[in-house]
């Protein structure tokens, strides 16, 4: 394998790697005929990201002759190669990635100004491929916006916020922080941002939907999109199906796939959800009923009134949802108690005709493969 990226694309490559580092700890690398695939997944398998850099992205692109080379390595080691974006800009003229299969090293050479060469030899582990099953084209809802819009939206939520809920109607989009249904939740500050569909470059909503996913893992993509200036597309379906964020240009395609909460009731939030299809009520200042609240308080001895939870506590098993029924749900549901997102489905069924050709189907990833690859069947 031998790829060379030059000029500004070195920085794009670096940014892609930094984005992936927000997802998982390992970088999966697979040179394909279609281009170099860089992927990452988080430990609970609820977030997956893939950057596909087409051969045109590179000045020179040569995939390995045996076509089935796949490896992974700690992402921190790769990040160290591309540590300072500013210095990459200033001094690196080209970046060469070569596979040294005799020594089992991936060699990344940075050709810098003044004839300086920085060579990094990274050890890797050969592994099974990593590919989440998803199909953007079949999603009922598609939004596309300039990255600035997405970044400005996310700004209203604290950096530590884990989960966010996205709801759409025929002409509005709401983003709310998602709060868990426990004793503390009613004391949490709730934030909601409402956008008009007009702010989006593309707005196709099949039906009113509401999905909840992890915001933190998404921020990596937003940073990449903002620096690249490329519009971000959002594909999603009903709760439980993953939400896919995608940034594309002629030489690059990035997909971030995030699992969503499977819910059987509306997410708990403070906002009146009765309004979606009509215009936002200009002012609902008069709809408070503090008086009745206060009267109740004065007659009792309790300094703080107790509140009634709006929905009964749900059993945790409802929150686990797998794409295919035949999978062992129990295995997925036995995750640590605070992981509520379903694991993304990672293969084990034959591809449907709607699968894009470059999504190679792999069986479930084996962490430490001690057998040869030829026993695994592949369909493409």
């Amino acid at each position: 394998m031998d790829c060379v990226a030059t000029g500004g694309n070195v920085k794009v490559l670096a940014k892609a790697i930094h984005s992936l580092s927000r997802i998982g700890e390992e970088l999966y690398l697979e040179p394909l005929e279609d281009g170099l695939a860089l992927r990452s997944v988080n430990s609970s398998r609820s977030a997956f990201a893939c950057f596909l850099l087409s051969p045109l992205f590179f000045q020179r692109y040569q995939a390995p002759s045996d076509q089935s080379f796949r490896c992974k390595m700690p992402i921190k080691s790769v990040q160290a190669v591309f540590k300072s974006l500013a210095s990459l800009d200033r001094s690196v003229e080209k970046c060469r990635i070569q596979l040294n299969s005799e020594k089992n090293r991936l060699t990344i050479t940075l050709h810098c100004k003044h004839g300086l060469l920085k060579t990094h030899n990274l050890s890797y582990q050969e592994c099974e491929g990593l590919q989440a099953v998803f199909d953007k084209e079949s999603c009922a809802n598609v939004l596309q916006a300039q990255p600035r819009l997405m970044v400005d939206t996310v700004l209203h939520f604290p950096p530590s916020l884990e989960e966010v809920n996205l709801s759409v109607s025929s002409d509005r989009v709401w983003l709310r922080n998602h709060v868990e249904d426990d004793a503390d939740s009613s004391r949490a500050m709730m934030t909601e941002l409402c956008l008009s569909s007009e702010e989006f470059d593309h707005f196709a909503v099949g039906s009113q939907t509401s999905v909840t996913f992890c915001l933190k893992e998404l921020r990596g993509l937003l940073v990449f999109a903002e620096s690249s200036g490329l519009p971000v597309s959002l594909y999603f379906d009903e709760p439980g199906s993953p939400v896919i964020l995608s940034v594309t240009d002629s030489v690059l395609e990035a997909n971030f796939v995030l699992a969503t909460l499977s819910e059987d009731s509306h997410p708990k939030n403070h906002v009146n959800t009765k309004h979606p299809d009509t215009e936002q009520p200009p002012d609902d200042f008069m709809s408070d009923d503090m008086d009745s609240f206060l009267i109740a308080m004065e007659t009792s001895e309790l300094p703080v009134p107790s509140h009634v939870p709006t929905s009964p506590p749900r059993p945790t098993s409802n929150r686990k949802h797998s794409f295919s029924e035949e999978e062992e749900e129990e295995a997925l549901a036995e995750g640590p108690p605070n992981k509520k997102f379903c694991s993304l489905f990672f293969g084990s069924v034959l591809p449907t005709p709607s699968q894009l050709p470059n999504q190679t189907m792999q069986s479930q990833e084996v962490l430490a493969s001690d057998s040869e690859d030829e026993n695994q069947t592949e369909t493409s």
Partner: protein
Amino acid sequence: MKFRAKIIDVGCLNHFTRVVNTVSRLTKACVLRLTCDHLYFVLSGRVASGGVSMWCELSQGNFFDEFQLEGVSADANEIFLEVAPENLSRALKTAQNAKSVKIKLTKKSCPCLTLAAELPSLSSVSRVVTHDIPVDVIPRRLWHDFREPQMPDFDVSIYLPPLKTMKSVVDRMKNLSNYLVLEANLNGEMNLKIDTDLVSVTTHFKELGNPPWGDDGSQSSSPAHRDPDLMAEARVEIRKLQQFLTGQQVNPSRAMCNIVDRRILHLIFLHEDVSLQYFIPAVV
């Protein structure tokens, strides 16, 4: 009980945000008292807050274009809410370029202060961001805990040195000791002292000036009877003084402190439309 208010002017919004930010740096929880003319952020001196107390008073007319209040009852036309100022700060933070900000008291699953900001957008329809900040309504029978603090019978009152200078001195002293003595006299002289086993450091300030308290200064012994060179002192935890000085986002038009010898350090910061008082108890 109803409360609704609206800010339209960007300058007022920024100023209000700075006040809230200052309060949020001083305490994690405080009481917001709303009356027809004023807003107060109150922290009453309790063991939990280390004995410091705070009284921050804003004249609502200087900030809000609309302000409507219906208090607990006709003869007690006020509302007392316990709130985490940090939440308010966070809500205001991203609304700094809003066309308008509305604040109202609402009831969601618990009583909330709802802040709704109308933001500029790329389309004809504004973006609206709404924050629901949970609050606790304080019943009338507890209101006496949050009364305006009496001006103490101070021994010395003096203007403070420039905030920046004082802060940098206190910051450095904090590295050397946990306690600091602030002493001042009616001759406009102030010293900040620390004294440990290893080192003593004193910073002297001169010609600071003493505020002219008149007959309404609630002084039993008039300043004239006091030897102008005699220092009144208060030994306080540096951390508390530093916290107060660090929190200030705007230079006050007037900054002074009153010292009750060995009892209390009373700091008063006055801006055009906001006054902030902070009481730090002296330790032995």
